[in-house]
């Protein structure tokens, strides 16, 4: 009786499932065009030499990695169909997909992988280079196998082999060329689901379906429209001129309006962590005192910044690494407990530090083209004015900003943002690590603490998450007290797309896996 009951239950469940899927959409439909908005022309179409966002958005469809990351960060096969990782995490063996061809018809092989890792991504890619520093050798026992040996284990190495970090490029097109200036950088030839068709600068990039791709590719064409103005990108989405606007290019301040629109789908919480923070130049006068820096933390209303600069779509910072990586968050070092918004306590601290507030005049440098950072800077100016500190806003063009902040260190405060996909060791440690002078996008505060350096290096080499959490607890205690950098908020990814697109966002990165999305008629 029991058995029969179970069978009945299973049957009815199956019937339900079938009915459900029949009532839902008809299956995948080929054809149509998907239009995505970009904020700027890509600076190149070679993803192996840059971490630029627009470049990745386009080339993720043209090139493939050995692996790709699924919607929840799971490692899925791409050019490699399977892999083994040795127990000591020092050897990775990849079996490559058979019968793959480049868009120009040539056969893909292990030699392409070796060349791409050694000569392109390992040398030129801002993120992959960090991972590649741990690699001892890349060997190709046969055309279908790649073996990577590590000098030291690197926790997030496997995840770093996706198309955004280690795109596989054609050896026959790049070998012997000066990679940085190869004509192939604007005429890309990949193995991916879409092939490059045209690029009208300032207007659009067009890709067409690769008929030889190993999985079905639904949409006929992908078009990337270049729309520099963020508000106009939102409008284009509403009028249907554009189908997709991805997080980085989506004006957060338009999101409340877009959510009301029935023709659109808006999803929150795309899990690519990004931190927005304020470097405090510890080499400068009163800012050398941790007490003064703590006073700034009390004085700055981070909830207001989130509410107004980000239209509420962000999380006020919870600590030195935010809360995007659970193991890098420590309750004892939580900013909301340590530094709640309190102009009074800020004033008291400044008094204790013996700072004459009325004579304190700080410069606030930021990239003029980044609207949310500009808004944050203006709120900070007003917040600090409430405690008697004068802030001079210094908006600068990107290259000038980099020169002022990173090369010359001529600033008091600056708002910046860093991303760190897959692991804080990739993108967040650099906020605090002792940095060589003049290097862009590293710690620009002049803060240097050997203990912090040691602990962060240890955290990067420790694979076990529970062990890492303990290390981060120690670092966080120091960093939350010293505050060379005040984290302002964790970004919350938001992506928006027209509702007639189906099977959206099948990759960890919203720029990935568009061949799996189809256009409902």
């Amino acid at each position: 009786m029991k058995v029969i009951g179970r069978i009945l239950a299973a049957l009815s469940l199956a019937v339900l499932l079938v009915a459900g899927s029949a009532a839902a959409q008809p299956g995948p439909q080929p054809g149509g065009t998907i239009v995505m908005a970009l904020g700027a022309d890509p600076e190149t179409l070679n993803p192996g030499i840059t971490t630029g966002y627009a470049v990745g958005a386009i080339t993720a469809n043209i090139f493939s990695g050995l692996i790709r990351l699924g919607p929840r960060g799971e490692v899925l096969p791409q050019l490699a169909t399977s892999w083994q990782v040795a127990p000591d995490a020092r050897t990775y063996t990849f079996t490559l997909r058979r019968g793959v061809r480049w868009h120009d018809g040539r056969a893909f092989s292990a030699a392409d992988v070796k060349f791409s890792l050694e000569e392109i991504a390992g040398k030129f890619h801002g993120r992959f280079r960090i991972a590649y520093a741990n690699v001892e050798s890349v060997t190709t026992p046969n055309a279908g196998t790649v073996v990577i040996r590590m000098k030291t284990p690197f926790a997030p190495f496997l995840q770093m082999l996706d198309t955004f970090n280690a795109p596989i490029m054609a050896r026959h097109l790049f070998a012997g060329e000066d990679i940085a200036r190869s004509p192939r950088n604007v005429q890309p030839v990949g193995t991916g689901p879409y092939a490059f068709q045209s690029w009208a600068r300032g207007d659009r990039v067009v890709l067409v379906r690769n008929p030889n791709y190993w999985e079905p590719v639904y949409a006929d064409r992908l078009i990337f429209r270049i729309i520099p103005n963020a508000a106009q990108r939102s409008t284009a989405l509403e009028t249907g001129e554009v189908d997709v606007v991805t997080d980085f290019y989506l004006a957060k301040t338009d999101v409340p309006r877009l959510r009301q629109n029935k023709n659109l789908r808006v999803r929150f919480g795309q899990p690519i962590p990004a931190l927005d923070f304020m470097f405090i130049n510890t080499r400068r006068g009163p800012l050398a005192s941790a007490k003064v820096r703590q006073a700034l933390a009390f004085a700055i209303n981070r909830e207001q910044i989130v509410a107004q600069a980000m239209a509420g779509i962000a999380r006020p910072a919870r600590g030195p690494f935010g809360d995007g990586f659970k193991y890098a968050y420590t309750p004892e070092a939580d900013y909301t407990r340590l530094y709640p918004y309190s102009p009074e306590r800020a004033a008291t601290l400044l008094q204790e530090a013996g700072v004459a507030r009325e004579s304190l005049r700080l410069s606030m440098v930021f990239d003029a083209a980044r609207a949310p950072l500009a808004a944050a800077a203006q709120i900070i100016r007003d917040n600090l004015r409430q405690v008697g500190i004068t802030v001079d806003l210094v908006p600068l063009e990107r290259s000038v900003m980099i020169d002022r902040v990173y090369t010359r260190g001529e600033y008091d405060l600056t708002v910046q943002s860093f991303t760190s996909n897959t692991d804080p060791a990739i993108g967040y440690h650099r906020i605090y690590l002792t940095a060589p002078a003049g290097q862009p996008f590293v710690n620009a505060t002049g803060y240097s603490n050997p203990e912090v350096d040691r602990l962060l290096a240890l955290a990067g080499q420790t694979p076990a998450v529970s062990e890492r959490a303990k290390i981060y607890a120690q670092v966080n205690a120091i960093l939350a007290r010293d505050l060379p950098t005040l984290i302002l908020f964790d970004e919350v990814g938001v992506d928006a797309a027209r509702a007639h697109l189906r099977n959206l966002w099948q990759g960890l990165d919203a720029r990935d896996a568009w061949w799996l999305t189809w256009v409902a008629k």
Partner: protein
Amino acid sequence: MGIIVVNFLLIALAPGDPVTVLLGEYPAPPEYVARLRDQFGLDRPVHIRLGRYVANVAQGNLGFSFAYQVPVVRLVLERLGNTLLLMGTAMTLAALAGVLLGVAAARRPHSRLDTGATALSLVGYSIPEFWLGQLLVLLFAVALAWLPAQGIRSTREEYTGLAAALDLGRHLILPAAALAFRYIALIARITRAAMLEVMHQDFILAARARGVEERRVLWRHGLRNAAIPVATVIGYNYAFILAGSALVETVFGWPGVGRLLFDAILQRDTPVLLGVLLLVSVTVVLVNLVTDVLYAYLDPRVRY
């Protein structure tokens, strides 16, 4: 030549390193940075770079864009067409509407029509084109949804022939109107003044005395003379119109020279910056020259 040197030094002496813009937000390998710098010739002293640049320009080579990795000449010409289309449409519009308004006003000075036209032209002359652009977008693209708010052509449809031209036209209306408005005002004012002056001159009086129909006098004789101020207004204001176009292009996301220039400033794309500035100067000189010739050709003292 002088222009080239001034521009070059101005940009070369400004703070900021063009290479840093190309590197994304992760620290880039020093070898790569060095290689880029070598590639762009940024590791050599300024005077050598200047010499090389001038020599290249003399051969018609404006260099290679840092940001797009294509020859500057190609990039600039791609965009120049769009800007000329916008400016040409706007100026045709301005000439037609301005002359019509001006002639109408001049026919009966101090009539209600005249006062209205004068007031309108004063207002038009004082409204910044980028703000007008915003207002037009608010009204025609946002509130009424009649016309596209930005871009140069529709994305999804692959139009050809007439349909493509119509599509382009729809995208052209708002930016062209925003750019034209100031010059409608200006041309109307000048046409009015010129007409008033001309209408009192002997040859007009003579024509009237011969019994030539009033309308004929107005259009045939008067208007011919109004052509001079119109041509000169457009000709000598070319530099201003170009600047206005840069502003309008920004509001409407129009991929023209103005936006290229603005993007080039943001990306510190020195070769493109220099190329655009050079092109702008050359066209200003050329247009002024053409205007001078046209002026001589149209001048009544030559014709009558």
